[in-house]
């Protein structure tokens, strides 16, 4: 596991329960690493788990591995894989990160890459302890023909046996784009307005803006021959229900409130980038990207 924030910890702790899997957790947060080595990696909430992966903040300690799973924030992909690539010289590296472009970055450092999209969520409570908020599925698929589907299946099988349901498909771009379009069309709107997901959706004019963003994202997916595995519009409306995620503050809104760099370049920025490549105009996604980057720039003003 490269990166054991909330999502990385869910994978690391659960996979460490399997007898036939040895898990190494690489993370730069020394306190988190020390706590894992001392007390194990504890999950609470949707599942009560204590896994005992080997944890280290020193990439040189990583042994050769069959699989790597990248779970850092997207802006740290480059430095994380640059530091750990040696461990995957004969293995496969999967990403379960948000956004677009992570696979391309990984492929710049390792031979065999697995595209992945994951829906479980959590948050770090304290070093060595993660709150598991939501269970969810993961989809893996080969990034290119250097990765056989059977290897993605082997990884999915291990995750499923560990309590993290996963499946492998030959083209995993559908779920990836479904999630990216959902996130790019809702997260920054919450971040720019301060509204929860439900309140964004109940304002009809704002909901129409969300639809404008969704339509651009879908058009870029279609231009690449990607078939979304579900309609983001339905997922957005479903999430807006009072009994689902009406009161949810988008992670990007939480980032903005805490003045943490956001993943905007990999969400809306990714859609814009692929749109340029495939000749699809994405003016609304470009506008939203520029605005959120403006918010980030405001933090460095005196």
């Amino acid at each position, binding site marked *: 596991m490269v990166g054991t924030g909330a999502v990385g910890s869910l994978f690391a702790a659960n996979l460490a329960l399997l007898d036939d899997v040895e898990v190494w957790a690489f993370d730069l947060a020394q306190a988190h690493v020390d706590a894992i080595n001392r007390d194990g990696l504890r999950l609470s909430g949707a599942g009560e788990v204590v896994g005992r992966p080997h944890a280290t903040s020193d990439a040189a300690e990583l042994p050769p591995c069959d699989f790597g799973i990248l779970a850092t924030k997207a802006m740290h992909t480059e430095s994380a894989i640059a530091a750990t690539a040696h461990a995957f010289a004969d293995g496969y590296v999967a990403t379960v990160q948000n956004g677009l472009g992570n696979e391309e970055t990984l492929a710049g450092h390792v031979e065999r890459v697995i595209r992945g999209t994951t829906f479980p969520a959590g948050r770090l409570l304290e070093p060595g302890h993660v709150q598991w908020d939501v269970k969810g599925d993961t989809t893996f698929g080969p990034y290119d023909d250097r990765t056989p589907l059977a290897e993605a299946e082997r990884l999915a099988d291990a995750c499923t046996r560990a309590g993290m349901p996963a499946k492998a498909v030959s083209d995993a771009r559908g779920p990836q784009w479904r999630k990216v379009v959902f996130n790019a069309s809702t997260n920054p709107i919450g971040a*720019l307005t*301060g*509204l929860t997901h439900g309140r964004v959706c109940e304002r009809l004019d*704002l909901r129409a*803006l969300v639809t404008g963003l969704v339509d651009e994202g879908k058009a870029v997916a279609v231009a690449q021959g990607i078939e979304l595995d579900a309609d983001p519009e339905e997922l957005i409306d479903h999430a807006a229900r009072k009994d689902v995620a009406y009161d949810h503050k988008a992670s990007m809104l939480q980032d903005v409130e805490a003045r943490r760099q956001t993943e905007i370049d990999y969400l809306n920025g990714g859609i814009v980038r692929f749109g340029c490549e495939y000749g699809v105009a994405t003016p*609304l996604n470009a506008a939203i990207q520029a*605005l959120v980057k*403006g918010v980030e720039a*405001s933090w460095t*003003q005196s």
Partner: protein
Amino acid sequence: MTKVVVAGAGSIGSLLAAHLAQVADVTVLTRREEHAAALRERGLRVSGRSDFTASLGATSDPGELPADADLTILACKGTDLVPLAASLEGTLPQATVMTIQNGLGAEDIVAAYGEWPLLSAVTFMSGTRHGDAHVEYVLDTATWIGPYRGTTEEDAKRAAELIEASGLKAEAFPDLRPAQWSKLIFNATVNGVAALTNLPHDFHFAQTNDLADLGFLVRDLVDEGKAVATVAGVELHDDPWEMNVVATQRGHRHFPSMLEDVEAKRPTELELINGALVREAERLAVGVPLQTAVYRLVKAREASYSE
């Protein structure tokens, strides 16, 4: 001596009132009586580009305004214009009324409350209030005036001359719309982006190095506004993009009022500025998707105050 009423004593109203009091008989209408009392007792001090203390009349009661006033300048914030105009209904029978609010539509709001001859104005000067009886004169750029209802360019000239004589800069135009629209597009763009990003109007707004730089968005927003102006038959007095570039090169970081408003969780002038532009675009069937997005986002940000 010309009798002038200045209604609203924020920074613009205070700058006008204090300067005009040098050449005219000025009465200020305030919302708070305590503010009027401070002005009556202490006068109104101006610092910065001017340095003097003006003595002037002040009241918070529209009924006490001089019935023979010649010129009334409504200098309140756009969000306060309806209650202000309503409070003046039936008063100031001899006055020409001049609006100076940002955006579009202030004149029509006022027109609904009386038969006064109306002048339109936009101002580019700025100031900072330091309490009820002290205003700092910051930017000494001009106020532009044009006829609106029942007035001619001559009336606009007389008002401009009076303001010039008082030590401020002013210019009259036969038709104010070219200037008004330049400022409308500039404000809708810059104030909207500032209110969403929390950035003061600084170099970011003109930056066009990387594709995701804010300057590209600002230019696209300006271009949408220009397209609306063209269809409306308005030939802009200034290019709003150039206004933006020049303002960001001035070297001091201006905090647009809309940004100050959202930070203080106050209602903004969004409807008179961005709302007016988007509604004009709709009326004229010009697509303005980005201006529409900014308008909806700021409106939603205002709604989040109650979160």
